[in-house]
């Protein structure tokens, strides 16, 4: 567990105790409500986690690396953004991967597109986002994120 998660645990537990001391009844009512809300999400979250495992097996980091490093920058930028949208690899794998490519002389544009869609666009989490916030919201947010990821990548290509 990283330090941030630990701090989160401590803060959450302390605040819960404060809430319990202040108003037991209200806290229990809130717990019931949250339990209902998160219980509804839980099966989707577990599904998403196992879906990520499946995607990672079929699109391993080596494949991603070959896409990111391909010669045609424009094509590989779009494909990298797509791959980033579908996969959800841990950041501590993604950064060294892109770093090694940049060190080897590849263009940074596909790498940035990949890193940005990796976290901002979620194809795998889309069903859950749609269920909780509606199709219009989820679609708008993900499509915009995809577009802006490409813009960010191109801008960085110009600046750096």
């Amino acid at each position, binding site marked *: 567990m990283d330090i941030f998660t630990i701090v989160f645990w401590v803060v959450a537990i302390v605040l819960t105790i404060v809430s319990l001391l202040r108003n037991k009844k209200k806290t229990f009512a*809130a717990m019931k409500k949250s339990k209902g809300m998160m219980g509804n999400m839980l099966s989707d979250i577990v599904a998403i*986690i196992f879906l990520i495992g499946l995607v990672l097996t079929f699109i391993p980091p080596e494949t991603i690396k070959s896409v990111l490093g391909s010669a045609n920058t424009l094509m590989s930028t779009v494909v990298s953004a797509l791959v980033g949208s579908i996969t959800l690899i*841990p950041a501590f794998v993604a950064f060294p991967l892109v770093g090694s490519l940049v060190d080897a002389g590849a263009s940074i544009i596909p790498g940035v597109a990949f890193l940005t869609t990796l976290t901002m666009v979620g194809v795998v989490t889309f069903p859950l986002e749609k269920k909780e916030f509606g199709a219009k919201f989820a679609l708008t947010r993900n499509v915009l994120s995809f577009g802006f990821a490409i813009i960010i990548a191109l801008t960085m290509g110009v600046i750096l």
Partner: protein
Amino acid sequence: MKTVSMIKKNKLLVLVALAYVVVLTISPEKAMSSVENSLYYLIEMLQVLPVIFLLTVVLESLVPKEVIMRGFGEKSGFKGNLLALLLGSISAGPIYAAFPISKTLLGKGASISNIVIILSTWAVVKVPMLANEAKFLGVNFMVIRWVLTVIAIFAMAYITGKFIKKKDLPADANKHMTLEIRADYCIGCGLCVKMLPEYYEMNNNKAVVCRSPDPKEALDLVKESIIKCPSQAIVFSEEEKAS
């Protein structure tokens, strides 16, 4: 009937389980390595979800609606956006962990723009991740990408806020739902009882509602039963709960 609604409720899980069965029959190795890959995320979920649960509880019970409205509401302006950026940045865990928090904030009056900011920064901006990025790609790279991303997130928040209104979002627990069957219209065909035995039952050859609908689990099903009813005897209404 019960299994059908179970499958409907857990559609994604069923689909993923089916995918695993297919992969397992074709290549057991690949299925095994998929499970192994999932383990990291499973552990991450177990570390984060209980905290998210407690935080939604605390938000619900300790923070008054007015505070959220002032901080993140429609009129909170740029200051609200910055606050949302800060909240998203100090977060922990993957994007799905942001969903319950965002839902609770929405229910308490946060604006759509600010929810977009919280969700996006939650996913993208994380302090340990920034350090990692600087280490492998250089401080310059990290700072420029961060600045551009924050600008993009603000632009997205603005556009989404223009496009999407609160009524586009699914009904949530804030709404009060009433479901009833007008007895003088009901012809006693029993169709609704067959469709949703959890909600309707027969009484003296007329259908009656036996449970009030849970907005999250059965809204679609209930709406379907309203359309299917041959004599249009089922009435459903929702209104904002005064709280």
